């Protein structure tokens, strides 16, 4: 078999777009130690990094660095083993399938079709697991960020009350004036088509936009909130706005904290 199809798969893999049976096939090929493909993947990744490097630099908010340094200081040394078992198990399972495919190919070609089906199913299960793992990782990261926040003495909990437009709604913000925090909302009806909810911080003269969010079918939502650059927040408020959010509030207020 010519190597040409793998040149293409390697490029698609490098940009993170390979899926289905192609992904299973290419990963099995990589595990056989194809240096041509390794080179294509490596050079493509470098080119994509070059693309990212072309963007004008943006200095990230200082609290990110501070939080990272705190976390790194709190961890005596890097620990990786505990979180490794899922990729390990996936890798082992896929390696077993690939090894089986190789042997079967030597012994009896009629097994190949069945193994192809198996490989595709494995690829689907892996993709599903990968997505679920990503979702879990998100949730763990959010929970960990809140735990970090709650450890800080100056962190407080701000209550948000539902107003006339949404009397059943309520909210809480875990808040630290410098580090920011996280918003939790309950009992808010889903925003109408073409609308979204937008959070505002009021510290100075004008409200500052603090991000948009949508609620799930149970009326719940949660999102990170950054500290505004115009001083300590006096009031938090949520309004209903056109989808995508707006720079200054225009719609009805649904939630607000007490002054």
């Amino acid at each position, binding site marked *: 078999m010519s190597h040409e199809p793998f040149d293409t798969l390697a490029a698609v893999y490098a940009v993170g*777009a390979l899926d289905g049976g192609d992904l299973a096939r290419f990963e099995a090929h990589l595990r056989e130690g194809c240096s041509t493909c390794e080179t294509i993947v490596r050079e493509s990744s470098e080119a*994509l990094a070059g693309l*990212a490097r072309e963007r004008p630099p943006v200095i990230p908010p200082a609290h*990110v660095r501070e939080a990272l340094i705190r976390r790194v200081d709190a961890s005596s040394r890097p620990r990786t083993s505990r979180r490794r078992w899922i990729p390990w198990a996936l890798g082992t399972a896929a390696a077993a399938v690939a090894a089986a495919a190789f042997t079967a190919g030597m012994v009896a070609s009629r097994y190949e079709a069945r193994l192809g089906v198996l490989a595709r199913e494995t690829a689907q299960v892996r993709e599903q697991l990968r997505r679920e793992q*990503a979702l879990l990782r998100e949730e763990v*990261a959010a929970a960990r960020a809140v735990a970090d926040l709650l450890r800080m003495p100056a962190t407080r909990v701000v209550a948000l009350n539902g107003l006339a437009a949404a009397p059943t709604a309520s909210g809480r913000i875990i808040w630290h004036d410098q580090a920011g925090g996280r918003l939790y909302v309950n009992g808010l009806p889903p*925003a109408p088509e073409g609308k979204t909810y937008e959070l505002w911080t009021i510290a100075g003269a004008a409200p500052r936009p603090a*991000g948009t969010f949508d609620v799930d079918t149970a009326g719940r939502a949660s999102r990170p909130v*950054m500290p505004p650059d115009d001083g300590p927040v006096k009031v938090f408020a949520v309004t209903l706005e056109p989808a995508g959010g707006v720079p200054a509030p225009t719609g009805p207020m649904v939630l607000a904290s007490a002054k």
Partner: protein
Amino acid sequence: MTGIDLVRRMAEGDRDAFARFYDRHARQVYPLILRIVRDHADAADVLQEVFWEAWQSAASYDPGRGTPEAWIFMRARTRAIDRVRAIRRRSETFVAPVDERVAAAAADAGGDAAERAEDRDLVLGALGQLPEAQREVIELAYYGGLTQTEIAERLTQPLGTVKTRIRLGLERLREVLNRSP
């Protein structure tokens, strides 16, 4: 100190090496995340997670597979796409697929003026030297997180065409970017 040395020291638990690694890369990694998730608070969250994971998995970095820079950009891109997917899954009222954001940006219909200007500037860079059809598939995959099948469905093109465009586009990018490092 080279980037590889920095990561090696991180793997040994050197916190100063981590701070230097962050200072060296964060201001390039942050705009990449921002380009994908399009929300400053979410982007800051993802940035923290990416560097935290880099600290935790520095020992698994293999210099044979690429520079530390490509390593951290790859992690940042993956986590940013994960974040966009998680947001999409969590808000069930949001029915549009993830790629709508990219499509909106490409059509200049979304984002603020600064974002649009930034996207235009980029087109003048390495991506701008690609034929439109190749640029489109690379943007949908790299920034939009779409798989080859999703891109083919979206563009109503045969899967084989999409794969070939990606390969040709990346080959061209490698040429352009390696010529002017």
